[in-house]
């Protein structure tokens, strides 16, 4: 709190655009010219990175660069930047790029970044800096058309012309500034081939999976791969679930088989199967061998069924309990179990050899006698489908009995898995699309 008070009372807070600082004259303490401001190195230690070094450029055409620490700056003036040092103290070199650091001109300005607030990939037209205690902090990035015009040096002219036509034009009034806390830069470290993700793992985890996948598909292939590798497993598996098969395949081609297996482990069984059944069988086997044996077993079982039958659609992640188990112990077991997906609201009741006996839901279980066997809480009747049932049959039954989830059994009534409504829906939507296209084609004839 103290530091905030100091800021407001002490030095004034001023915003400045990086484009206005770029190429500003730099002079030493005796007012001798040292060159122009070329770039600023920032320390991404806080939410808002702070300037740590200044890069000065001098000479043409043989350009030389000098790097100096921020405390050596006396003042950032309107016309020129004054240093505390003498020019002779500066060391000019041919190269200035220290690859590890984040710099404004090279890594942010004009580059593509991810806007995690609006779920978009954007290009930075300008950087909005905040001057606090002689230090500069990245406050916002500017993505507006006006930012472009400013960079071209026509801001005043265009502002004047726009004001002539329309005094309160949106162009003048609204600034398209995006707070740095929502920005994830995409500059790739050339040595480790990773993208530095500072605060934002949290931000990525707040984005719904489908939007995350959309952002991801907006990136170019190199950025896709590097960003993907830089993220944590749960974000990676959320992205993987959201993108289409083509994008999945091109990612997998660039990854180690072990990394692929790791992602497949973390996916819900039916989605992992969807992917595996589309790639060549020998490659799929290679991944299965590297996976946790339990998940691998499940998947290879699911892979045996044709993809448009109930067996191919189902997942074998479901909750089933013995019919004599007391309700309270069932609830206790559900509480401690870890699920990869939000499991459906239904609990299945089976006998000793996994024959399907019935089904129940949480409401029925809570209302039932807690010490009594779970089969007392079952629905009066449970409908199920067979492994070989077609998509249409499954959809018909689910619609008829208003089920969100339907159990799948084999010919001996052994419980094999469940099909949830979202799996059916995606099948039906693609079916409906084909139909709409056909109708449209007919109408066009």
């Amino acid at each position, binding site marked *: 709190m103290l530091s905030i008070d100091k800021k407001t009372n002490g030095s004034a807070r001023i915003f400045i655009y990086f484009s206005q600082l770029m190429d500003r004259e730099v002079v030493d303490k005796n007012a001798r010219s040292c060159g122009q401001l070329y770039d600023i190195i920032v320390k991404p230690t806080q939410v808002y990175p702070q300037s740590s070094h200044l890069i000065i450029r001098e000479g043409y055409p043989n350009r030389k660069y000098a790097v100096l620490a921020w405390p050596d700056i006396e003042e950032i003036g309107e016309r020129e930047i004054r240093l505390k040092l003498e020019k002779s103290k500066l060391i000019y070199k041919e190269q200035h790029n220290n690859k590890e650091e984040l710099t404004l001109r090279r890594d942010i300005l004009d580059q593509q970044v991810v806007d995690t607030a609006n779920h978009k990939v954007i290009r930075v*037209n300008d950087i909005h800096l905040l001057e606090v205690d002689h230090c500069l902090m990245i406050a916002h990035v500017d993505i507006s058309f006006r930012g472009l015009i400013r960079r071209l040096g026509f801001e005043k002219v265009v502002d004047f012309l726009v004001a002539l036509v329309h005094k309160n034009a949106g162009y003048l009034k609204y600034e398209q500034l995006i707070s740095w806390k929502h920005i994830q830069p995409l500059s790739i470290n050339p040595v480790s081939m990773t993208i530095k993700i500072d605060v934002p793992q949290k931000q990525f985890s707040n984005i719904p999976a489908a939007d995350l996948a959309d952002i991801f598909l907006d990136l*170019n292939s190199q950025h896709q791969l590097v960003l993907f590798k830089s993220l944590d497993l749960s974000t990676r598996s959320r992205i993987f679930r959201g993108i289409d098969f083509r994008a999945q395949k091109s990612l997998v*081609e*660039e990854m180690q088989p072990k990394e692929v297996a790791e992602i497949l482990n973390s996916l819900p069984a039916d989605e992992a199967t969807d992917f595996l059944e589309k790639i060549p069988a020998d490659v799929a086997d290679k991944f299965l061998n590297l996976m946790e044996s339990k998940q691998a077993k499940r998947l290879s079982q699911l892979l045996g069924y044709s993809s448009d039958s109930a067996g191919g659609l189902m997942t074998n992640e479901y909750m089933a309990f013995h019919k004599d188990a007391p309700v309270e112990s069932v609830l206790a077991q559900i509480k401690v179990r870890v699920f990869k997906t939000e499991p459906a609201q239904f609990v299945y009741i089976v006998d000793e050899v996994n024959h399907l006996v019935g089904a129940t839901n949480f409401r029925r279980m809570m209302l039932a006698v807690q010490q009594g066997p779970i089969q007392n809480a079952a629905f009066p009747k449970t409908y199920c489908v067979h492994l070989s049932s077609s998509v249409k049959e499954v959809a018909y039954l689910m619609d008829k009995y208003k089920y969100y989830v339907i159990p799948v059994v084999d010919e001996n009534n052994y419980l094999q898995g469940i099909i949830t409504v979202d799996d059916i829906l995606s099948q039906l939507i693609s079916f409906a699309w084909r139909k709409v296209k056909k109708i449209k084609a007919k109408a066009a004839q």
Partner: protein
Amino acid sequence: MRLKKHWREFLIFLSIMGPGMITANVDNDAGGITTYSVAGAHFGYALIWSFVPIIIALVIIQEMCSRMAVVTGKGLADLIREEFGVKVTFYAMAVLVFSNLFNTISEFAGIAASAELFGISKYIMVPLCALFVWWLIVKGTYKTVEKVFLAACVFYVSYIISGFLSKPDWNEIVSESIHPKFQFNKAYLLMLIGVIGTTIAPWMQFYQQSSVVEKGIKLKNYKYSRWDVIAGAFVVNLVAIFIVIVCAATLFKNGIRVETAKDAALALKPLAGKYCFYLFAFGLLNASIFSACILPLSTAYSVCEGMGWEVGVNRRFREAPQFYGLYTAIIIIGAAIILIPNVKLVPIMLLSQATNGILLPFVLIFMLLLVNNKRLMGKYTNSRIYNIFAILTIVLMVGLSVALLFTQFMQ
């Protein structure tokens, strides 16, 4: 076993093929066909040898674009913006818009000319084609659009067939191409400059790189992408050679002089028969529509990449308003100017050549700097020998394009 492997490689090549083939084929646009017809009609087979250096230049330049696209995953305008800043990009894009607009106008002129050859009024044909071209991109996805473009490439075969229909003397063609007879007179040199100078235009580098990026070709499949460029360069020049042959075997033999592709087609009718005439006219129509589609598309890609707006054929109008807006505007302006009665095309051609000539050196030099940038390209930068050839090609192309500009202004 080996055969099977080759077959598989060929299938992969077919799936990768597209950007290089399409970009190269658009080089045979309305303007190109005119140049080659005139070259054949006025100089016979004496200029056929010049297609060898053209193929080499085309491969060298376009291969660099393709490589940059695959390695960096970014378009040329993207890279120029990221490495050279917004000012350079803005002015380059401004010139590119004008250059491509003028080129588009001349494509619509080609559509109008071929419509008249078929006896259709240009006031019907030009708006119809403009609408078709617009609808294709706005409603299509990258995949469908590419298929249509590749089909358009196939239609260039019409020139090869018409070449055979014109019954040329093959022995003469072979001997003329192996022992080229240089003529050191003004007309021959001007024609030579015209033929080679139109080969490389700035939009081609932008378009090729963007479409390779949008196709999402992987580094491990890069060799197929290179074949795509090489195959494209060969196919386009084969077609060009046949255009020269058609005109040489008929018009040159009979001493008929022509100024445009339309004149050439009309003059063909009594000499080579009506099928040859129809094929030639159809080729012109196909080439003009095809190019009238690609040029605005290339402009929209480049400008939106450079300015940081949403890009892509796979998006809808509302998702990428600048992209489709620019595309639509260029088509409308291009078609509208051709519909002005008695419009003079010569100044437009001059402007097109002038803007090309101004932009080309910059684009090629940027490309050379970018492709040799270790930070972007890693180990895929140019080798020293490649650089020597690339610099030679660039100097030659820039020189020729400036020379072309001068010759046109002098006329």
